[in-house]
């Protein structure tokens, strides 16, 4: 690979090579991501006694990857808006604000992550059923 070591080296320019490297990294991550999606999607289909066809899983993987990239952009903006450099759980929860049910799920999950420790000042507004799956069956 010509251009040598791009990381932390020359600032500003060196545009094209940096882009190519970023693209390669993206492809690598996309592949790893796809593998995870394949296993999650197939496990989920199995739970439904069904099988997910290949194109469906590939499509879901692509969608989920794009969603992840969008999520990254969103939470970065939220953190910056709050004057922070570090994204925290509230930023993630905020990204789901359009879907009340999803917000509730995330909030309960976040409570679990915080541990059995002290309840934060944010009381759980929605009744959070921890085992609740999103689909009304």
């Amino acid at each position, binding site marked *: 690979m010509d251009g040598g070591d791009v990381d932390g*080296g*020359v600032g500003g320019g060196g*545009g094209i090579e940096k882009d190519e490297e970023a693209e390669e990294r993206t492809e690598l991550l996309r592949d790893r991501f796809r593998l*995870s999606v394949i296993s999650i999607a197939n496990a989920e289909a199995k739970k439904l006694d069904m099988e997910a066809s290949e194109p469906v899983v590939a499509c879901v993987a692509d969608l989920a990857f794009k969603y992840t990239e969008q999520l990254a952009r969103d939470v970065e903006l939220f953190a910056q808006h709050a004057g922070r*450099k570090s994204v925290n759980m509230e930023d993630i929860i905020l990204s789901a604000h359009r879907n009340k049910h999803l917000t509730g799920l*995330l909030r309960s*999950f976040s409570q679990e992550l915080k541990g059995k420790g002290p309840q934060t000042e944010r009381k759980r507004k929605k009744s959070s059923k921890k085992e609740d799956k999103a689909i009304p069956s």
Partner: protein
Amino acid sequence: MEEETFDPELICSIFKLVWSRRATERNESIEVVDVEVGDRTKKNRQTTANSNALKLSCELIRIFVTEAVQRSGMIAEAEGINKIEPTHLERVLPQLLLDF
């Protein structure tokens, strides 16, 4: 039942990639990055995420995937088929994208 989920490290790497891409875009339009400090200048330190936020993101993306499969599965089931095909996913896609 063991829940399959994403590796927080993987999600972290993806986030970082997106953030550094954005930082580069910003730097090119605002100012040249300070050579000594690389991409960690005082003004333009890269965004990071705390570990709980990463785990929560893994959960969020996992829910996205399971929702897509579950909703498509419901359509397939309604048709009496037990294999989820692209047409089933197509049906649920608009609402799925609106919900997330």
